[in-house]
């Protein structure tokens, strides 16, 4: 780290430009300017290095399997053949399930907190939700592993299999032995993990709306739901989208909460109740067993690269949507 700060300042000053070129410069001032500019540059270098190294490390896999790597659905360490589709599919579907469950939970709770709950209760519940958004993800993973997985295996799956086994369409979704692990379980745990976070953000956004608007709407005879749906939601749309996309970003890259409950089988299929894997869980599990320089390690780094692209894309999406609505 000190190395970087020592070697970069020239470049940093060139880029950092001109803020007070007209004024008289004293020695310590220049040094201070260079120091802080260098630390800014270092932050840039870290992310640059992150992207470049991930891409370089994965280049062997990309060379071997071509761009089809992303859509090839075999992940077979024994035959040394790797494709990213199985974990990618797992990541995308579990994230979508998580957001789909978390969104009504977060929206409903934020609605209740800002429009219905008695102020005292709202303050307590609101603080509790904010605090829970800070609980480390591994706790949610453990809770899922010891609570949700047995519940799914003993109650939900037997029930679904018993009643919907022969229903076309649903049959494929619920197919699978009752292990309790799978995309549905992962989605549930992810939902519980991101719901407090999304609730906290949405509550802040709703509460930030000027009370005047709310009072005017009530004065016109609007019901609570009218106010919510026709005044608060349009007013805070960009903030809500931000909350959703940020929650989605968290779910995309989540490792610990998912690894416990996904089952870790690299297969592709429509069943939401069969063991699967996600990009992050596959990396966490297989990285320690992959020797340096092997194709497998390269394939895992390539997976990491793709995950990073997904994470960038979700952030860019959030910015774009926010920019459009402002």
């Amino acid at each position: 780290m000190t190395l970087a700060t020592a070697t970069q300042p020239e470049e940093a000053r060139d880029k950092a430009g001109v803020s007070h070129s007209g004024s008289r410069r004293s020695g310590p001032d220049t040094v201070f300017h260079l120091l802080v500019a260098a630390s800014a540059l270092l932050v840039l270098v870290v992310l640059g290095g992150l992207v470049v190294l991930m891409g370089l490390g994965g280049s062997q896999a990309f060379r071997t399997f071509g761009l089809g790597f992303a859509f090839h659905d075999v992940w077979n360490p024994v035959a040394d053949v790797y494709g990213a589709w199985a974990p990618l599919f797992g990541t995308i579907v579990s994230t979508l399930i998580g957001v789909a469950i978390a969104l009504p939970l977060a929206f409903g709770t934020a609605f209740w907190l800002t429009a219905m709950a008695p102020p005292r209760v709202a303050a307590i519940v609101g603080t509790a939700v904010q605090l829970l958004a800070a609980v480390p993800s591994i706790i949610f993973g453990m809770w899922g592993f010891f609570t949700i997985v047995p519940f799914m295996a003993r109650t939900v799956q037997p029930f679904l299999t018993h009643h919907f086994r022969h229903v076309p369409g649903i049959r494929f979704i619920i197919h699978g032995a009752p292990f309790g692990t799978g995309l549905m379980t992962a989605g549930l745990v992810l939902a519980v993990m991101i719901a407090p976070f999304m609730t906290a953000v949405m509550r802040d956004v709703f509460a930030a709306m000027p009370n005047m608007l709310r009072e005017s709407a009530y004065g016109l005879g609007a019901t609570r739901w009218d106010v919510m749906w026709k005044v608060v939601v349009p007013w805070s749309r960009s903030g809500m989208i931000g909350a959703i996309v940020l929650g989605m970003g968290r779910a995309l890259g989540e490792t610990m909460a998912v690894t416990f409950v996904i089952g870790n089988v690299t297969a592709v299929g429509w069943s939401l109740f069969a063991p699967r894997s996600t990009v992050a869980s596959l990396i966490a599990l297989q990285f320690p067993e992959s020797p340096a320089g092997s194709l497998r390690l390269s394939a895992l780094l390539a997976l990491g690269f793709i995950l990073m692209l997904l994470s960038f894309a979700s952030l860019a999406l959030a910015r774009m949507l926010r920019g459009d609505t402002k």
Partner: protein
Amino acid sequence: MSGTVVSTTGWKPNPRAARRRRADHLATAFGMVMAGILVLVLASILWTLLSRGLAGLSATAIMKPMGPPGSSSGLANAIVGSLIQTFMALLMATPLGLGCGIYLSEYGTETNKFASCVRFVSDVLMSVPSILVGLFVYQVLVAPFGHFSALAGSVALAILAVPIIVRTTEDMLRLVPTSMREAGAALGATRWRVTLSLCLRSAKTGVLTGILLALARVSGETAPLLFTSLGNQNWSFSLNRPMASLPVTIYQYAGASYEDWVQLAWAGALLVTMGVLAINIAVRVSARRG
């Protein structure tokens, strides 16, 4: 309700009003049910954590180092390892984050392309999946040296802490009024004196909050430590060797089939959660006072 006893009073039922009222009742019920579900689920997590964690928590769990299943082992080396690594991470992240935050707020004007680029990158870093940070540090600090190390773990945590510190430092420094800077300059103070002794001092509480939040964030991180500090069954104080940490130990123990290891995992989970929550509550209380 609306369409029943109306003819005598001359009041006509209004289907639109009735529909709006129905929608309102539905939405109210929806909000309450959702809030109820969320609160119940979260309470169930806390309850599981408390009941199982307290059962596993004992003097042995805190005082003794990890050991094979069946022996009376504990988490002491993991606790100390976590403390060392998070402390090291903050030691690296604080100056860097402060420097970057100062740069962005004091020198990063609207027209400064480099600053807006750094600001964007810092935002991106805040949302990068933490396991990728672990992979990155593995390639930089583990693979070239051929062994896992506590230093690599600390660097990985530091990378996660920096963007949080940058963001709060910049925001807090921007709240300092320009007149304060002008007053300092009028008294003949140089720019770095103004920044450090006036701006940073008056924004002290907010900046400290950022550092504490970063601490809370990284102290529960598991994924970036898996390939960097790896974990260790024994006492180790060397930054150059693998070191145990509480989250990684929880991860290893929770999936094990030994009852006493699982109990220790819950005890560790309780400790981590309480630590994180204590920091967050402290931040809140101090913010309310300040």
